[in-house]
């Protein structure tokens, strides 16, 4: 992004981006090393790529001895998912850690990268830069610098959320700030972007896709915009496999935009579509070819999930439904005694940090229903008042809905693979954060739903609620690990 583009961006958008970066940096300090889902595996992937130039070849969690020694000295296994166990807290434990950091022999690469192994390499390749810069330091030095690079992606996410809202709600400039700033302060975005995890880049790329689609819906599908959508889709596909869930919706969006453009400009619209699809899928073809040549599944876990889904189609559809919504009459409950909507997704969003082992007390989740209901009501009011405008933008909204649905179905399919041994293994809110642009727009809409007179005040209140949630969440994490 050159200086000219930066200058054209609203100052409020840049401030939102800065707040998101600072927030993620704060989370990276508050959260102990490796106490974020899968961080040891992602670190191992970067180590392998940075030191050998090759992709990891094993999904074993027995990563390099260099990393495992540090994990042991950090009491990683005892702290992870044991909320009653604190992080290391004495001088003697710190001395032991420093001895481990100083004495552990350097091991080149890590062929094993646990759950990170099947993931595409873009995020890890970017993280290889800070890894190499801190190569002379300890494992913790490298991790700290890599976490800081991840924080930048939080800023990009907030920036694109702001720009997405600007495109979708062009008539209410103050509402752009409500959505952009609230997302910048979202604690889960801070937690994940303050760690070494490809989710950080995935959120940014997904927000960029929403922005590009919204821009094309508002201004038409030019070859340049088509190329941008294609390029961002390509980046998403080589960032994390979960992005595949967004692809059907993006392709639908391109088709709708092409049909619209064809009415005005004829066949050249189809050239733009071909350009977008060509750019979008060329890296995937290359990646699949490399995977196939090296003996891996071409697209990692996705084909396995698809083949299972065909086998148990009805049960799987029912499971996916129940993963998000109350079960339908006449169906068997897959989550007995558990309200998935409330307990997995809502409570999980209100606060579940660390290795999903640091929740708020139960009453906080109950209290959070009040602002959530108020936001939902205001959002509903705004949609009702703007129903005529909604009708004219039905195709655009259908595209956003298809993107959301695609990701939710992918999470459901992946989760179903470990069912029933594990009821909802992928029932984690972070997997829905690629849809954070939609949440930002909903918050902006809610503020607008309070009316012209009260809208800005309601918007300010929404921002304060998110700031409060963020600060209290960090205090909860501090209490859990250092209390």
């Amino acid at each position, binding site marked *: 992004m050159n200086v000219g583009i930066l200058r054209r961006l609203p100052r409020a958008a840049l401030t939102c981006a800065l*707040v998101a970066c600072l927030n993620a940096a*704060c989370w990276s*300090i508050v959260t102990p090393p490796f106490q974020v889902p899968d961080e040891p595996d992602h670190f191992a992937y970067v180590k392998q790529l940075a030191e050998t130039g090759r992709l990891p070849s094993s999904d074993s969690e027995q990563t390099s001895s260099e990393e495992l020694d540090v994990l042991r000295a950090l009491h990683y296994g005892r702290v992870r998912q*044991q909320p009653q166990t*604190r*992080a290391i807290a004495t001088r003697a434990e710190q001395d032991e850690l420093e001895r481990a950091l100083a004495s552990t022999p350097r091991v080149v690469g890590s062929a094993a990268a646990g759950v990170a192994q099947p993931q595409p390499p873009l995020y890890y390749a970017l993280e290889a830069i800070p890894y190499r810069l801190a190569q002379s330091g300890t494992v913790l030095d490298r*991790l700290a610098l890599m976490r800081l690079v991840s924080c930048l992606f939080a800023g990009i996410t907030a920036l694109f959320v702001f720009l997405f809202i600007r495109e979708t709600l062009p008539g209410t400039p103050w509402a752009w700030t409500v959505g952009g700033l609230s997302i910048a302060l979202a604690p889960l975005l801070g937690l994940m972007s303050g760690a070494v995890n490809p989710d950080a880049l995935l959120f940014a790329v997904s927000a960029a896709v929403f922005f590009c689609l919204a821009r094309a819906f508002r201004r038409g599908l030019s070859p340049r915009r088509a190329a941008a959508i294609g390029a961002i889709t390509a980046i998403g596909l080589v960032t994390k496999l979960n992005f595949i869930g967004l692809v059907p919706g993006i392709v639908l969006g391109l088709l709708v935009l092409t049909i619209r453009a064809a009415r005005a400009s004829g066949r050249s619209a189809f050239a733009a579509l071909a350009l977008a699809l060509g750019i979008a899928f060329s890296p995937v073809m290359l990646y699949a070819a490399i995977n196939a040549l090296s003996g891996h599944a071409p697209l990692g876990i996705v084909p396995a999930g698809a083949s299972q889904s065909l086998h148990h189609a009805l049960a799987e559809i029912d499971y996916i439904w129940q993963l998000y919504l109350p079960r339908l009459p006449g169906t068997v409950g897959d989550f007995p005694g558990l309200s998935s909507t409330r307990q997995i997704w809502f*409570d999980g969003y209100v606060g579940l940090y660390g290795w999903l082992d640091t929740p708020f007390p139960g009453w906080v989740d109950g209290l959070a229903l009040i602002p959530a209901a108020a936001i939902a009501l205001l959002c509903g009011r705004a949609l009702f008042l703007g129903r005529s405008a909604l009708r004219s933008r039905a195709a655009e909204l259908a595209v956003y809905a298809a993107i959301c649905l695609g990701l939710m179905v992918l999470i459901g399919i992946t989760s179903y693979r470990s069912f029933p041994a594990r009821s909802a293994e992928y029932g984690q809110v972070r997997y829905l954060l690629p849809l954070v642009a939609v949440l930002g727009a909903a918050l902006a809409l809610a503020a607008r739903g309070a009316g012209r007179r009260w809208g800005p005040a309601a918007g300010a209140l929404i921002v304060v609620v998110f*700031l409060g949630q963020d600060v*209290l969440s960090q205090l909860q994490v501090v209490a859990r690990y250092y209390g």
Partner: protein
Amino acid sequence: MGLALLSLAIGLAMLRAPMSVAGTNKVAGQPEELLTGTSRSASYCQAHETLPRGSTAIRIWLDAIYGPRVSVLVTSDGRMIASGQRGAGWTGGSVTVPVRPLSQTVSGVVVCASFRLRDETIVVQGNTAPAASSAYDGGEAIGGRMWIEYLKPGELSWASLIPTVVRHMGFGRAAAGSWVVFLALALVACIAILTARLVSRELP
């Protein structure tokens, strides 16, 4: 005003005391063992426990991804002296169930943790023990004693624990030292200032 309310909420939270362990059957330094796992409804009971005075919660070392509703019943000579429930949806290596505190310590109690389960796997953690002293499910020993901790509010508030927390936060990092706490505070202050300025400028 919003920021003032937030500061007030933080202040009130700091006046509260964190939970502390009033009693436990865990042996210090001994790692937990996986005693048994189940995918069906169960009621694990363990005798020879001591329920300390003032305990407001009982933590049982059950492991689940999304755990079911758990009921805890404490009996002494066959009479119920404490009970509590924790709703479904808990996650991690232990479940904490709130109970009404007693005015005196009671020894020789039986603690039962019950849940209804269909598919999810629950793992019981603790230490192996002879069948005679082992926890049991339906009269059948599970091969060891599950870890149980009895919690009550500590004597010191979070505010008075700040120096300890600051010292702990300085450990286990790339560059160890309490300075990281002040860096985090500075970042939070920057975030609050930027947010307040942006809100006052854009949302008049």
